[in-house]
């Protein structure tokens, strides 16, 4: 609400980002302001409209435990404090089927002709804070969420015990509206469960349950609470103290997750069967109510926002930060920052700290006249460009602009310097500064100039594989000494030409190594690496060269052990490659010259040229 009143903040609620263009310092964002059908500047939230609305729907804010009308205030603290007409629920506006709300509105705030509006804003930086979705436990049938009324989720518990909730804070069970005396909490519902595709810890559920048990002990001291858990993760400041206080109130903590819940049809009580792993025996508990401590998941709009801002995701589906330790709120897209749950599960305190950090990072850019970018961006030579446009889709940052029939151009502020475009261009039109084709091929030739048969050529990405080599070094891990590393910013910089040149120069084994998928520092550029290596395996096979001589590995900066193991494995592979094989590869893989764009000769020039030839 403070944000809504702040003179420097324009709060656009009930709106969504429709389109984004531009780059750091110069973003143009198109925002769809959805039709509210109520003029919020005129509405004084008197509520007369809702009283006459005949449509009754489950109230989403109260998790369906109470109802709302088609015209309603979404939740008590909504900004602006104005009613909104949900046209999906309304009986109809074209033609107006009911119209009662408009009849009673003294302020004439109801507008059935309201339409979505697209507004454009120029912004310098963007902070993405799109929050989370709560896991829906209906798929976990063993807990009977859809079958038994008295199995509720932790979100429903929150509404039931809240003074502003549907029962005004009187905690009752849904089946008979009686106060439950024995309550069970089941942890990790939708968390740490690879079987349902959610292997990650949701981070907040343990402390939320501990808080709930303390609330129950405070409101209803005679309640018996049982918590079924696999691990209690109380790792924050004062959290362990809360956990101990919960135990002191008499809450029992049973280590083991229930395998089954049954309902007693007569009493509607729930019988929970659980293997107590501390005692090593099967136990049964009869409870009045069971609360499923549901986990969290990435919001459903995350993929859309990811596409709009070219953000990468981690394997668990949340947004990936630029660096987990050194750039925890930055993203791979310059000028776009992350705050809150969309980056990964975290509690309120962490979210607030991250939001402050993101605002500071954004403020630093906004308060500077210019930004500094590393001089490793790509440059396109228009004269060499074939206008094919193949470079544009391989850029994970959308930094290459191309329209049919025109040479591609690079926006340097968007380019992060992965070099994927340079590797994809078959015409040599793209130069990645400081990592040019000529420089990298010169390194290949220099390494293989003498005794190539004794060497393993390794292309290592700057951020992970090369750093993995450093880690092996500083950890004093010994490994074979035959490898020779060529550093590129990203494994996607390695072109097919470089690999073929290496084999032509007599390399027995070539290794291309990069970051793990989830760690790619260029969103998803290493997927291009996989495509190229797959194509190279086909090329080698067709040329009669053993494709196994080209290897691919993902090595992170922390995997010094893996780096050493891979290098030893490459050495073993090198020893299997015979001199005859190397010679055959050298012959079969002669480098092809770069393709040259055929220039169309204007008719007048052609005539002049033929006239000159004739005169000669």
């Amino acid at each position, binding site marked *: 609400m403070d944000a809504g009143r702040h003179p420097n903040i324009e709060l656009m609620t009930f709106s969504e980002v429709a389109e984004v263009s531009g780059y750091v310092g110069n973003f143009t964002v198109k925002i769809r302001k959805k039709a509210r059908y109520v003029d919020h500047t005129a509405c004084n939230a008197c509520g007369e409209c809702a009283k006459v609305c005949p449509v009754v729907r489950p109230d989403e804010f109260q998790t369906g435990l109470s109802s709302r009308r088609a015209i309603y205030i979404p939740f008590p603290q909504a900004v602006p404090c104005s009613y909104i007409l949900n046209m999906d629920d309304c009986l109809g506006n074209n033609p107006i089927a009911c119209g009662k709300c408009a009849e009673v509105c003294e302020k004439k705030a109801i507008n059935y002709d309201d339409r979505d509006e697209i507004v454009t804003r120029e912004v310098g930086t963007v902070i993405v804070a799109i929050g989370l979705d709560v896991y829906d436990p209906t798929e976990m049938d063993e807990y009977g969420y859809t079958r038994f009324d008295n199995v509720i989720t932790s979100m429903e518990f929150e509404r039931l015990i809240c003074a502003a909730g549907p029962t005004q804070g009187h905690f009752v069970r849904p089946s008979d509206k009686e106060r439950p005396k024995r309550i069970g909490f089941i942890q990790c519902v939708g968390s740490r469960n690879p079987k349902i595709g959610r292997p990650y810890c949701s981070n907040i559920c343990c402390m939320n349950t501990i808080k709930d048990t303390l609330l129950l002990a405070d409101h209803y001291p005679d309640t018996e609470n049982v918590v079924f858990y696999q691990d209690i993760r109380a790792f924050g400041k004062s959290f362990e103290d809360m956990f101990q206080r919960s135990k002191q109130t008499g809450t029992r903590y049973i280590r083991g997750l229930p395998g089954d819940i049954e309902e007693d049809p007569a009493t509607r009580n729930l019988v929970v069967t659980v293997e107590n792993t501390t005692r090593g025996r099967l136990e049964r508990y009869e409870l009045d109510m069971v609360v499923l401590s549901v986990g969290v998941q990435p919001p459903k709009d995350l993929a859309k926002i990811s596409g709009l801002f070219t953000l990468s995701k981690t394997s668990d589906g949340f947004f990936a930060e630029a660096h987990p330790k050194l750039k925890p709120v930055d993203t791979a897209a310059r000028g776009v920052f992350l705050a809150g749950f969309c980056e990964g599960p975290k509690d309120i305190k962490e979210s607030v700290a991250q939001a402050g950090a993101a605002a500071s990072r954004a403020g630093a850019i906004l308060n500077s006249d210019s930004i500094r970018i590393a001089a490793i961006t790509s440059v396109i030579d228009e004269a060499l460009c074939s206008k094919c446009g193949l470079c544009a889709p391989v850029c994970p940052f959308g930094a290459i602009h191309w329209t049919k029939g025109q040479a591609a151009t690079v926006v340097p502020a968007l380019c992060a310097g992965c070099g994927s475009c340079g590797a994809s261009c078959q015409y040599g039109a793209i130069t990645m500064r400081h990592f040019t084709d000529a420089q990298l091929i010169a390194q290949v030739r220099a390494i293989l100039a003498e005794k190539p048969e004794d060497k393993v050529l390794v292309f290592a990405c700057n951020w992970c594989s090369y750093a993995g080599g450093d880690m092996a070094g500083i950890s004093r891990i010994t490994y074979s000494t035959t490898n020779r590393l060529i550093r590129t910013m990203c494994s996607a910089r390695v072109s097919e030409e470089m690999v073929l040149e290496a084999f032509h120069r007599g390399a027995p084994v070539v290794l291309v190594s990069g970051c793990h998928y989830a760690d790619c520092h260029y969103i998803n550029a290493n997927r291009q690496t996989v495509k190229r290596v*797959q194509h190279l395996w086909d090329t080698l096979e067709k040329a009669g060269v053993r494709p196994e001589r080209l290897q*691919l*590995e*993902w090595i992170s900066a922390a995997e010094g052990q893996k780096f050493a193991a891979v290098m030893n494995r490459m050495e073993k*592979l090198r020893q299997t490659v015979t001199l005859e094989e190397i010679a055959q590869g050298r012959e079969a893989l002669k480098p092809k010259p770069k393709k040259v764009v055929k220039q169309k000769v204007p008719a007048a020039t052609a005539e002049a040229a033929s006239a000159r030839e004739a005169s000669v």
Partner: protein
Amino acid sequence: MSAVQTFRCMMCGYEYEEPGEKAEDKERSCPKCRSNSIRHLKPKRPPAAGKEPAHA
């Protein structure tokens, strides 16, 4: 639903099947030796209709 594809480890030669559309769909590693050099073996096209394979 994604089709099952055949992959071969270019380090140990182990062949296995996994659901997926393309080689780059996800990070792959050999179930046997953990190598990341996993080649997607594209299904061989059947001979075109009416064309008999050449006999020796």
